[in-house]
C-alpha cells in the first residue's frame, strides 16, 4: 500500500453485490472518503444505499470488488473484522440499544470488553460522551425509559466510545417521530464540526445541504451522481436526480 493516498480513509473499488435470489443490490461501485469528510448518501428506498453502508464494516458481504478501510482490506478472508470494526462506528435506524443495560452500560460495554480498558477510564469517557449528546442525567435509565431521540443519541455515544476514525449512520432519523429528528441531527452536526469523518445515509435533505461536503445519489444499486451540496441540490446535472428531488419537494 505504498501508493495509497494517506488522506483516504475508505477506498471502495468495483464493488458489486448480488443476493442469493439474483437481485443485484450493488453494481460496480467505486467510492472514496477522505479523512474529515462528511458524505451524505441519498436515494429512493431499495436503491442500495443502506447495503453499501453496511458493506463498509462487513455487516454485509460483497460479491466482487475490494473495500479498504484505513488501508486494510475489509472483505479479504484474512481481515481481522473485530479489530477493524473498532475503527468504524455505526448508528442504526432502529437504534439497537441493548435493552437489558442502562444507557451508561450500553456505552461502556464494548470499550471494557473489546479494548480491555480500565473501568474508571471507560466510565469517565462514557459519562463525558453522554453529557456531550445531552443525556448526562439519563445515564442510569434503561432504553425502554428513553424516547426515540434519546435512544438514538445514546447509540451515537455508544459508537463514539470506541473512538472510531469514521462514523457510519444508517438512516439515523427515519424511525423517529418528527419532533425528535432535530435533537439527533444537532448531535451529528456538532460531530461533523469537530472534524469526524462521517458517511450518512439519510432522507434529511436539509441536513445534507448544511453539513455534507459531498452528496451522493444512488439508484438501482449504482452511484448515479455526486457533487458538492450546493451544486447537488440547486443545479443537479442529472435527470434521475432531478426527478427524485422533485418528488421529495412535492411531498
Amino acid at each position, binding site marked *: 500500500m505504498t501508493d495509497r493516498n494517506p488522506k483516504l480513509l475508505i477506498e471502495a473499488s468495483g464493488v458489486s453485490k448480488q443476493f442469493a435470489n439474483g437481485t443485484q443490490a450493488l453494481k460496480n461501485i467505486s467510492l472514496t472518503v477522505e479523512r474529515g469528510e462528511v458524505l451524505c448518501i441519498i436515494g429512493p428506498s431499495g436503491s442500495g444505499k443502506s447495503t453499501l453502508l453496511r458493506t463498509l464494516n462487513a455487516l454485509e458481504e460483497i460479491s466482487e470488488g475490494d473495500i479498504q478501510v484505513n488501508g486494510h482490506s475489509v472483505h479479504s478472508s484474512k481481515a481481522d473484522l473485530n479489530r477493524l*470494526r*473498532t475503527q468504524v462506528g455505526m448508528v442504526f435506524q432502529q437504534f439497537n440499544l441493548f435493552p437489558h443495560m442502562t444507557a451508561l452500560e450500553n456505552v461502556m460495554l464494548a470499550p471494557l*470488553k*473489546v479494548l480491555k480498558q480500565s473501568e474508571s477510564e471507560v466510565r469517565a469517557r462514557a459519562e463525558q460522551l453522554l453529557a456531550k449528546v445531552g443525556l448526562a442525567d439519563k445515564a442510569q435509565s434503561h432504553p425502554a425509559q428513553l424516547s426515540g431521540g434519546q435512544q438514538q443519541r445514546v447509540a451515537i455515544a455508544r459508537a463514539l466510545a470506541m473512538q472510531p476514525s469514521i462514523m457510519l449512520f444508517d438512516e439515523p432519523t427515519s424511525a423517529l417521530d418528527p419532533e425528535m429528528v432535530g435533537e439527533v441531527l444537532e448531535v451529528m452536526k456538532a460531530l461533523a464540526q469537530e472534524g469526524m469523518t462521517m458517511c450518512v445515509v439519510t432522507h434529511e435533505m436539509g441536513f445534507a445541504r448544511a453539513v455534507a461536503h459531498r452528496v451522493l445519489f444512488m439508484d438501482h444499486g449504482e452511484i448515479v451522481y455526486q457533487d458538492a451540496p450546493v451544486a447537488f441540490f440547486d443545479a443537479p446535472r442529472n435527470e434521475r436526480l432531478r426527478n427524485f428531488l422533485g418528488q421529495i419537494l412535492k411531498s
Partner: protein
Amino acid sequence: MSSPAKKPADRVPWIWHGVYALVILAIGASLYFASKRIDYSWHWERLPEYVISTEGEEIRASFDGFVEISEDGKTLTMTEMKGAGIETFSGFSQVLVGQGDLVFQNDVLARKPGMRPGPLLIGLWLTLKISAISLVFALPLGLIVGLGRVARNPAARNLAATYVEIIRGTPLLVQIFIFYFFIGTVLQLSAFTAGVAALSVFTGAYVAEIVRAGIEGVARGQMEAARSLGMSYPQSMRYVILPQALRKTLPPLTGQFINLIKDSSLVSVMALTDLTKAGREVVSSTFSPFEVWFSVAILYLLLTGSLSLVVRRLEKRLAHD
C-alpha cells in the same frame, strides 16, 4: 408507569369465584361418593407412618457375638464370638434381644426413640436429588447444544440437530433402558449415575430447543450492533444475546424442569427407589393403593409447586430490573 383505567377483568363479579368453588366442591363430592360406593376400606391412618416413621432408630450389631444386658436394663454389651471386640450401647427405649442371646452381624438389638423419615420421604429425597443433579447437567448441555443449533458452522449445527431429533423422537422410558442396560454396562455406571445421565441427556435436548427459540427471539439488530462495536461472536452472545434470551426463556425452562421432576418417576424401572418406586413398595406393605397414590401425587405437587413459586418470584424480580 401510569396505571391505566381498571380493566374489566379486575371488576369480574364475585359470583365467578363462587362458581369456581362450586365446581371444585362438586368434583370433590362426586369423588367422595364414588369412593363410598366401591368396596374398599379406606385406611388413611396407615399412611403417616410411611412418611415420617416414629418407630425410632434401630441399633444393629456390627459383628457376631453374645448379648449381655446390665441389671438396670439401660446398657447393652456385645462380646464378639470369634475375637476380642466389645461394643456397648445405651440410650435405647426398647430391647429386642434377651440376656445371653447369640446374635449375628446386622441383627437389630434395640430401638432408640425418635422420628426418622419413612420410605415415602426417602423416595421424595431421591426424586429431588436425581432431578436436581440432572438439572445441573441438563442446563449447560442444553445451552451448548442450543448455541450449536444457531451456529453458522455446519458441523456444529448438524450435530446439534441430530442429537435433538434422536432424543425427541424416542420415548424416555426406552432411553432409560438403553442407558441402564447398554451404556450403564459398557461404562460400568451405577443405576443412579445411569439415571442422572438419561434424564440429563433427555432434558438437555428440550432445553436446547428452548434456548434456540430464545436466541432467535432476540432482534437481529442486537447481534449487528454488538458486532459493529468490534465484539466477537462469543462476546456478543455472552454479553448481549444470551442475557436477553435467557430472560425470555425462564417460563418455558421452568416448565421443562417441572417435566424433569415428573419424568424422573420413570427411573423407578431401574432399581432406584424414588418417590414412585417407594409408593409401589408402600402399597405392597399396606394394601392401600388408593391412599398411597394420592399421597404420592401430593408429594410430587409439593415439589413442582414450590419450584413454580420460586421461579415466579424470580421472574417478578427480573421484570423490575
